[in-house]
Protein backbone atom coordinates (compact mmCIF):
# COMPACT_ATOMS: atom_id res chain seq x y z
CA UNK A 1 0.00 0.00 0.00
CA UNK A 2 2.99 2.27 0.45
CA UNK A 3 2.80 3.70 -3.07
CA UNK A 4 -0.90 4.44 -2.84
CA UNK A 5 -1.75 8.12 -3.09
CA UNK A 6 -5.34 8.91 -2.14
CA UNK A 7 -7.41 11.37 -4.11
CA UNK A 8 -8.83 13.97 -1.79
CA UNK A 9 -11.31 16.74 -2.53
CA UNK A 10 -11.71 19.62 -0.12
CA UNK A 11 -14.95 21.57 0.10
CA UNK A 12 -14.15 24.86 1.80
CA UNK A 13 -15.71 28.23 2.41
CA UNK A 14 -14.29 31.31 0.78
CA UNK A 15 -13.90 33.45 3.89
CA UNK A 16 -12.10 31.26 6.37
CA UNK A 17 -10.64 28.01 5.14
CA UNK A 18 -9.95 29.13 1.55
CA UNK A 19 -8.22 32.19 2.98
CA UNK A 20 -6.50 30.00 5.56
CA UNK A 21 -5.18 27.79 2.76
CA UNK A 22 -3.98 30.95 0.99
CA UNK A 23 -2.09 31.76 4.17
CA UNK A 24 -0.54 28.28 4.18
CA UNK A 25 0.74 29.21 0.76
CA UNK A 26 2.05 32.65 1.66
CA UNK A 27 3.71 31.03 4.69
CA UNK A 28 5.25 28.41 2.34
CA UNK A 29 4.15 25.59 4.62
CA UNK A 30 4.35 22.34 2.63
CA UNK A 31 1.63 19.73 2.60
CA UNK A 32 0.57 16.72 0.63
CA UNK A 33 -0.44 17.51 -2.94
CA UNK A 34 -3.22 14.94 -2.99
CA UNK A 35 -5.83 17.45 -1.96
CA UNK A 36 -7.70 19.69 -4.38
CA UNK A 37 -9.84 22.52 -3.19
CA UNK A 38 -13.28 23.58 -4.35
CA UNK A 39 -14.32 27.03 -3.24
CA UNK A 40 -17.80 27.78 -1.87
CA UNK A 41 -19.09 31.05 -0.51
CA UNK A 42 -19.95 29.40 2.78
CA UNK A 43 -20.12 25.95 4.35
CA UNK A 44 -23.86 26.52 4.38
CA UNK A 45 -23.74 26.24 0.57
CA UNK A 46 -22.17 22.76 0.56
CA UNK A 47 -24.76 20.24 -0.52
CA UNK A 48 -24.30 16.81 1.05
CA UNK A 49 -24.95 15.29 -2.37
CA UNK A 50 -21.66 16.76 -3.59
CA UNK A 51 -19.82 14.61 -1.07
CA UNK A 52 -21.52 11.53 -2.46
CA UNK A 53 -20.62 12.67 -5.97
CA UNK A 54 -17.00 12.98 -4.93
CA UNK A 55 -16.94 9.38 -3.73
CA UNK A 56 -18.81 8.29 -6.83
CA UNK A 57 -16.18 9.95 -9.00
CA UNK A 58 -13.35 8.13 -7.28
CA UNK A 59 -12.38 10.25 -4.30
CA UNK A 60 -10.73 8.25 -1.52
CA UNK A 61 -11.31 10.96 0.99
CA UNK A 62 -12.99 14.31 1.54
CA UNK A 63 -12.27 17.36 3.64
CA UNK A 64 -15.06 19.77 4.55
CA UNK A 65 -13.95 22.92 6.25
CA UNK A 66 -15.18 26.39 7.09
CA UNK A 67 -15.24 29.16 9.63
CA UNK A 68 -15.21 28.37 13.31
CA UNK A 69 -18.61 28.65 15.02
CA UNK A 70 -19.47 32.32 15.64
CA UNK A 71 -17.01 33.45 12.94
CA UNK A 72 -19.15 32.84 9.87
CA UNK A 73 -18.94 35.69 7.40
CA UNK A 74 -22.66 35.30 6.98
CA UNK A 75 -23.16 34.91 10.76
CA UNK A 76 -24.86 31.52 10.71
CA UNK A 77 -24.11 29.44 7.61
CA UNK A 78 -21.63 27.27 9.46
CA UNK A 79 -24.10 26.57 12.25
CA UNK A 80 -26.59 25.26 9.72
CA UNK A 81 -23.80 23.29 8.08
CA UNK A 82 -22.89 21.79 11.44
CA UNK A 83 -26.38 20.43 11.93
CA UNK A 84 -26.41 19.13 8.37
CA UNK A 85 -23.10 17.31 8.91
CA UNK A 86 -24.28 15.84 12.19
CA UNK A 87 -27.25 14.28 10.40
CA UNK A 88 -25.21 13.26 7.39
CA UNK A 89 -22.54 11.61 9.49
CA UNK A 90 -25.10 9.65 11.50
CA UNK A 91 -26.84 8.48 8.34
CA UNK A 92 -23.58 7.46 6.68
CA UNK A 93 -22.49 5.60 9.81
CA UNK A 94 -25.80 3.80 9.84
CA UNK A 95 -25.43 2.82 6.20
CA UNK A 96 -21.88 1.64 6.75
CA UNK A 97 -20.19 4.34 4.70
CA UNK A 98 -16.76 4.91 6.19
CA UNK A 99 -16.83 8.29 7.88
CA UNK A 100 -13.11 8.05 8.63
CA UNK A 101 -12.72 9.04 5.02
CA UNK A 102 -14.26 12.44 5.64
CA UNK A 103 -12.57 15.09 7.76
CA UNK A 104 -14.74 17.90 9.02
CA UNK A 105 -12.85 20.87 10.37
CA UNK A 106 -12.98 24.54 11.25
CA UNK A 107 -9.97 26.37 9.82
CA UNK A 108 -9.91 30.13 10.12
CA UNK A 109 -8.21 32.58 7.79
CA UNK A 110 -5.41 32.81 10.34
CA UNK A 111 -4.85 29.08 10.65
CA UNK A 112 -2.54 28.42 7.74
CA UNK A 113 -0.61 25.88 9.77
CA UNK A 114 -3.76 24.14 10.85
CA UNK A 115 -4.83 23.74 7.24
CA UNK A 116 -1.56 21.98 6.40
CA UNK A 117 -2.03 19.84 9.45
CA UNK A 118 -5.61 18.93 8.55
CA UNK A 119 -4.53 17.95 5.02
CA UNK A 120 -1.50 15.98 6.15
CA UNK A 121 -3.25 14.00 8.84
CA UNK A 122 -6.13 13.25 6.51
CA UNK A 123 -3.82 12.10 3.74
CA UNK A 124 -1.72 10.01 6.13
CA UNK A 125 -4.84 8.35 7.46
CA UNK A 126 -6.13 7.68 3.97
CA UNK A 127 -2.80 6.22 2.89
CA UNK A 128 -3.14 3.73 5.70
CA UNK A 129 -6.74 3.00 4.86
CA UNK A 130 -5.96 2.41 1.22
CA UNK A 131 -8.21 3.11 -1.76
CA UNK A 132 -11.94 3.20 -1.08
CA UNK A 133 -12.39 -0.17 -2.71
CA UNK A 134 -15.81 -1.00 -1.36
CA UNK A 135 -17.36 2.21 -2.67
CA UNK A 136 -15.58 1.90 -5.99
CA UNK A 137 -16.75 -1.69 -6.28
CA UNK A 138 -20.26 -0.52 -5.61
CA UNK A 139 -20.00 2.07 -8.39
CA UNK A 140 -18.38 -0.34 -10.84
CA UNK A 141 -20.81 -3.11 -10.04
CA UNK A 142 -23.65 -0.69 -10.64
CA UNK A 143 -22.30 0.18 -14.06
CA UNK A 144 -22.24 -3.55 -14.83
CA UNK A 145 -25.78 -3.94 -13.53
CA UNK A 146 -26.90 -1.31 -15.97
CA UNK A 147 -25.10 -2.89 -18.88
CA UNK A 148 -26.79 -6.14 -17.98
CA UNK A 149 -30.20 -4.49 -17.78
CA UNK A 150 -29.76 -2.99 -21.17
Amino acid at each position, binding site marked *: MSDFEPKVVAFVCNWCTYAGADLTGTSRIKYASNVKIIRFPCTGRIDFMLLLKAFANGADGIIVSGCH*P*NDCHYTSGNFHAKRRWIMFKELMDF*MGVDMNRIT*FSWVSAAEGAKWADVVNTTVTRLREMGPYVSYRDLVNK*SVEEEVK*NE
Partner: protein
Amino acid sequence: MNNLIARAKELLENKIVQVIVGYEAGPTGVARPAFITNPAKADLLIYDERCVQNLAVYLTKPEVRNLGKMAIVATLPVMRSIMMLISEQQIFADNIIVLGVSSDGSLLDIADIKVMQAYIEKSDLGNPVKDRALLVELNKLSKEERFAYWQKELSKCIKCYACRQACPLCYCTRCTVEVNQPQWIPVQSNTHGNMEWHILRAMHLAGRCISCGECGRACPVGIPCHLLTMQLADEVHNYFKVYAGTSEKMSSVLSTFEPNDKESFII
Protein backbone atom coordinates in the same frame (compact mmCIF):
# COMPACT_ATOMS: atom_id res chain seq x y z
CA MET B 1 -66.29 3.14 15.31
CA ASN B 2 -69.94 4.05 15.67
CA ASN B 3 -68.92 7.36 17.15
CA LEU B 4 -66.67 7.93 14.18
CA ILE B 5 -69.42 7.21 11.69
CA ALA B 6 -71.89 9.39 13.56
CA ARG B 7 -69.46 12.26 13.69
CA ALA B 8 -68.58 11.87 10.02
CA LYS B 9 -72.23 11.90 9.07
CA GLU B 10 -72.88 14.95 11.13
CA LEU B 11 -69.97 16.82 9.57
CA LEU B 12 -71.11 16.00 6.04
CA GLU B 13 -74.80 16.59 6.67
CA ASN B 14 -74.16 19.98 8.22
CA LYS B 15 -71.81 20.80 5.35
CA ILE B 16 -69.03 21.56 7.79
CA VAL B 17 -66.77 19.55 5.54
CA GLN B 18 -67.12 18.31 2.02
CA VAL B 19 -65.09 15.15 2.32
CA ILE B 20 -64.09 12.66 4.96
CA VAL B 21 -60.72 11.01 4.45
CA GLY B 22 -60.80 7.69 6.25
CA TYR B 23 -60.58 3.95 5.83
CA GLU B 24 -63.04 1.48 4.37
CA ALA B 25 -62.84 -2.25 3.86
CA GLY B 26 -61.86 -3.25 0.36
CA PRO B 27 -63.31 -6.25 -1.45
CA THR B 28 -60.76 -8.62 0.10
CA GLY B 29 -61.19 -7.15 3.54
CA VAL B 30 -58.01 -5.14 3.39
CA ALA B 31 -58.41 -1.60 4.65
CA ARG B 32 -58.07 1.04 1.98
CA PRO B 33 -58.43 4.80 1.96
CA ALA B 34 -61.92 6.15 1.54
CA PHE B 35 -62.95 9.61 0.40
CA ILE B 36 -66.52 10.02 1.49
CA THR B 37 -68.51 12.98 0.26
CA ASN B 38 -72.02 11.59 0.70
CA PRO B 39 -73.33 11.35 4.28
CA ALA B 40 -75.19 8.21 3.39
CA LYS B 41 -71.90 6.50 2.65
CA ALA B 42 -70.38 7.34 6.01
CA ASP B 43 -71.38 3.90 7.21
CA LEU B 44 -68.60 2.48 5.11
CA LEU B 45 -66.00 3.99 7.42
CA ILE B 46 -64.01 1.58 9.53
CA TYR B 47 -61.31 1.93 12.07
CA ASP B 48 -59.46 -1.11 13.44
CA GLU B 49 -56.03 -2.70 13.44
CA ARG B 50 -56.13 -3.13 9.67
CA CYS B 51 -56.03 0.65 9.26
CA VAL B 52 -52.34 1.45 9.30
CA GLN B 53 -51.80 3.69 6.29
CA ASN B 54 -50.83 7.29 6.99
CA LEU B 55 -53.74 9.12 5.39
CA ALA B 56 -52.06 12.50 5.76
CA VAL B 57 -50.42 11.91 2.40
CA TYR B 58 -53.73 12.77 0.73
CA LEU B 59 -53.93 16.18 2.37
CA THR B 60 -51.58 17.70 -0.18
CA LYS B 61 -52.86 15.86 -3.25
CA PRO B 62 -54.70 18.27 -5.55
CA GLU B 63 -57.32 15.65 -6.41
CA VAL B 64 -58.37 15.43 -2.77
CA ARG B 65 -57.93 19.11 -2.04
CA ASN B 66 -60.25 20.02 -4.86
CA LEU B 67 -63.07 18.17 -3.10
CA GLY B 68 -63.25 20.99 -0.53
CA LYS B 69 -62.82 21.26 3.18
CA MET B 70 -61.94 17.92 4.71
CA ALA B 71 -62.05 15.93 7.87
CA ILE B 72 -59.46 13.21 8.32
CA VAL B 73 -59.36 10.11 10.46
CA ALA B 74 -56.14 10.64 12.31
CA THR B 75 -53.93 8.32 14.28
CA LEU B 76 -50.93 9.74 16.09
CA PRO B 77 -48.66 9.68 12.99
CA VAL B 78 -51.37 11.40 10.96
CA MET B 79 -51.68 14.10 13.57
CA ARG B 80 -47.92 14.60 13.60
CA SER B 81 -47.94 14.75 9.81
CA ILE B 82 -50.63 17.41 9.98
CA MET B 83 -48.49 19.43 12.38
CA MET B 84 -45.55 19.20 10.00
CA LEU B 85 -47.67 20.16 7.01
CA ILE B 86 -49.06 23.17 8.82
CA SER B 87 -45.62 24.26 9.99
CA GLU B 88 -44.33 23.91 6.44
CA GLN B 89 -47.25 25.93 5.15
CA GLN B 90 -48.66 23.15 2.99
CA ILE B 91 -52.07 23.07 4.64
CA PHE B 92 -53.95 25.49 6.86
CA ALA B 93 -55.30 24.55 10.25
CA ASP B 94 -58.62 26.20 9.45
CA ASN B 95 -59.21 23.97 6.46
CA ILE B 96 -59.12 20.68 8.22
CA ILE B 97 -61.02 18.83 10.92
CA VAL B 98 -59.16 16.12 12.76
CA LEU B 99 -61.09 12.98 13.70
CA GLY B 100 -58.49 11.69 16.12
CA VAL B 101 -58.51 8.01 16.95
CA SER B 102 -56.55 6.61 19.85
CA SER B 103 -54.54 3.43 19.63
CA ASP B 104 -57.50 1.46 21.03
CA GLY B 105 -59.74 2.77 18.29
CA SER B 106 -61.84 5.21 20.29
CA LEU B 107 -62.70 8.60 18.88
CA LEU B 108 -60.78 11.47 20.44
CA ASP B 109 -62.19 14.93 20.88
CA ILE B 110 -59.66 17.01 18.94
CA ALA B 111 -61.35 20.39 19.05
CA ASP B 112 -58.43 22.35 17.67
CA ILE B 113 -54.71 22.37 17.07
CA LYS B 114 -53.93 23.13 20.71
CA VAL B 115 -55.81 20.04 21.86
CA MET B 116 -54.04 18.01 19.21
CA GLN B 117 -50.70 19.39 20.34
CA ALA B 118 -51.44 18.44 23.93
CA TYR B 119 -52.40 14.93 22.81
CA ILE B 120 -49.23 14.54 20.76
CA GLU B 121 -47.06 15.84 23.56
CA LYS B 122 -48.24 13.24 26.01
CA SER B 123 -47.85 10.40 23.53
CA ASP B 124 -44.80 8.22 22.99
CA LEU B 125 -43.05 9.92 20.11
CA GLY B 126 -40.25 7.44 19.63
CA ASN B 127 -40.14 5.00 16.74
CA PRO B 128 -42.60 2.07 16.70
CA VAL B 129 -41.48 -0.71 19.01
CA LYS B 130 -40.75 -3.33 16.36
CA ASP B 131 -38.69 -0.85 14.37
CA ARG B 132 -36.79 0.12 17.47
CA ALA B 133 -35.75 -3.49 17.85
CA LEU B 134 -34.63 -3.65 14.23
CA LEU B 135 -32.60 -0.50 14.64
CA VAL B 136 -30.89 -1.90 17.70
CA GLU B 137 -29.96 -5.03 15.77
CA LEU B 138 -28.59 -3.08 12.83
CA ASN B 139 -26.62 -0.74 15.05
CA LYS B 140 -24.94 -3.74 16.64
CA LEU B 141 -23.42 -4.76 13.31
CA SER B 142 -19.98 -3.64 12.20
CA LYS B 143 -19.64 -0.87 9.67
CA GLU B 144 -18.74 -3.34 6.95
CA GLU B 145 -21.68 -5.56 7.78
CA ARG B 146 -24.03 -2.60 7.67
CA PHE B 147 -22.59 -1.52 4.33
CA ALA B 148 -23.15 -5.02 2.97
CA TYR B 149 -26.64 -5.16 4.44
CA TRP B 150 -27.76 -1.97 2.81
CA GLN B 151 -26.11 -2.82 -0.49
CA LYS B 152 -28.02 -6.06 -0.53
CA GLU B 153 -31.30 -4.36 0.36
CA LEU B 154 -30.84 -1.43 -1.99
CA SER B 155 -29.86 -3.62 -4.91
CA LYS B 156 -33.52 -4.69 -4.94
CA CYS B 157 -34.77 -1.12 -5.43
CA ILE B 158 -36.48 -0.59 -8.76
CA LYS B 159 -36.76 3.20 -8.35
CA CYS B 160 -40.53 3.09 -8.45
CA TYR B 161 -40.56 5.90 -5.85
CA ALA B 162 -43.47 4.35 -3.97
CA CYS B 163 -41.63 5.33 -0.79
CA ARG B 164 -41.81 8.93 -1.90
CA GLN B 165 -45.43 8.76 -3.01
CA ALA B 166 -46.53 7.24 0.28
CA CYS B 167 -44.77 9.77 2.44
CA PRO B 168 -46.95 12.66 3.60
CA LEU B 169 -43.89 14.90 3.83
CA CYS B 170 -42.59 14.19 0.32
CA TYR B 171 -45.03 16.70 -1.09
CA CYS B 172 -42.66 18.53 -3.44
CA THR B 173 -44.14 19.04 -6.87
CA ARG B 174 -40.71 18.51 -8.30
CA CYS B 175 -38.37 16.06 -6.64
CA THR B 176 -34.59 16.27 -6.82
CA VAL B 177 -34.61 13.03 -8.83
CA GLU B 178 -36.40 14.88 -11.59
CA VAL B 179 -33.64 17.48 -11.84
CA ASN B 180 -31.22 16.84 -14.69
CA GLN B 181 -29.14 20.01 -14.53
CA PRO B 182 -27.12 18.47 -12.97
CA GLN B 183 -28.33 14.88 -12.87
CA TRP B 184 -28.11 14.43 -9.09
CA ILE B 185 -29.57 10.93 -9.11
CA PRO B 186 -29.08 8.59 -12.06
CA VAL B 187 -32.30 7.77 -13.84
CA GLN B 188 -31.64 4.04 -14.09
CA SER B 189 -31.82 1.81 -11.10
CA ASN B 190 -28.55 0.37 -9.92
CA THR B 191 -27.30 -0.27 -6.43
CA HIS B 192 -25.13 2.82 -6.24
CA GLY B 193 -27.73 5.14 -7.66
CA ASN B 194 -30.38 3.55 -5.48
CA MET B 195 -28.23 4.20 -2.45
CA GLU B 196 -27.83 7.84 -3.46
CA TRP B 197 -31.58 8.14 -3.80
CA HIS B 198 -32.21 6.67 -0.38
CA ILE B 199 -29.56 8.88 1.25
CA LEU B 200 -31.13 11.88 -0.41
CA ARG B 201 -34.58 10.87 0.77
CA ALA B 202 -33.43 10.26 4.33
CA MET B 203 -31.55 13.55 4.51
CA HIS B 204 -34.56 15.42 3.18
CA LEU B 205 -36.62 13.88 5.95
CA ALA B 206 -34.06 14.49 8.69
CA GLY B 207 -35.86 16.33 11.44
CA ARG B 208 -39.12 15.99 9.52
CA CYS B 209 -39.83 12.24 9.61
CA ILE B 210 -42.64 11.47 12.02
CA SER B 211 -41.91 7.72 12.17
CA CYS B 212 -45.10 6.43 10.55
CA GLY B 213 -43.18 3.81 8.58
CA GLU B 214 -45.34 4.31 5.51
CA CYS B 215 -42.36 4.34 3.13
CA GLY B 216 -41.30 0.89 4.27
CA ARG B 217 -44.84 -0.47 4.00
CA ALA B 218 -45.23 0.99 0.51
CA CYS B 219 -42.06 -0.59 -0.87
CA PRO B 220 -43.08 -3.30 -3.32
CA VAL B 221 -39.77 -5.15 -2.99
CA GLY B 222 -39.63 -5.01 0.79
CA ILE B 223 -36.69 -2.67 1.43
CA PRO B 224 -36.91 -1.48 5.05
CA CYS B 225 -36.17 2.06 3.89
CA HIS B 226 -38.20 3.47 6.79
CA LEU B 227 -35.32 2.47 9.07
CA LEU B 228 -33.14 5.12 7.45
CA THR B 229 -35.45 7.96 8.31
CA MET B 230 -36.27 6.46 11.69
CA GLN B 231 -32.60 6.20 12.58
CA LEU B 232 -32.31 9.90 11.85
CA ALA B 233 -35.45 10.63 13.87
CA ASP B 234 -33.67 8.96 16.79
CA GLU B 235 -30.54 10.99 16.17
CA VAL B 236 -32.50 14.20 15.91
CA HIS B 237 -33.85 13.49 19.34
CA ASN B 238 -30.43 12.53 20.67
CA TYR B 239 -28.74 15.66 19.43
CA PHE B 240 -31.43 18.29 19.50
CA LYS B 241 -33.98 16.92 21.96
CA VAL B 242 -36.90 17.36 19.62
CA TYR B 243 -39.44 15.15 17.90
CA ALA B 244 -40.87 16.20 14.57
CA GLY B 245 -44.52 17.13 14.27
CA THR B 246 -45.19 18.24 17.81
CA SER B 247 -46.35 21.76 17.14
CA GLU B 248 -47.73 23.84 14.32
CA LYS B 249 -44.93 26.35 14.88
CA MET B 250 -42.24 23.71 14.78
CA SER B 251 -39.14 24.90 13.04
CA SER B 252 -37.25 22.27 11.15
CA VAL B 253 -34.08 20.94 12.71
CA LEU B 254 -32.00 21.51 9.60
CA SER B 255 -33.21 25.04 9.01
CA THR B 256 -32.51 26.24 12.52
CA PHE B 257 -29.60 25.93 14.92
CA GLU B 258 -28.43 26.58 18.43
CA PRO B 259 -24.98 28.13 18.76
CA ASN B 260 -23.99 25.43 21.22
CA ASP B 261 -25.11 22.41 19.21
CA LYS B 262 -22.82 19.61 20.29
CA GLU B 263 -20.88 17.31 17.99
CA SER B 264 -17.60 15.50 18.44
CA PHE B 265 -16.24 14.96 14.95
CA ILE B 266 -15.41 18.43 13.65
CA ILE B 267 -11.75 19.20 14.32
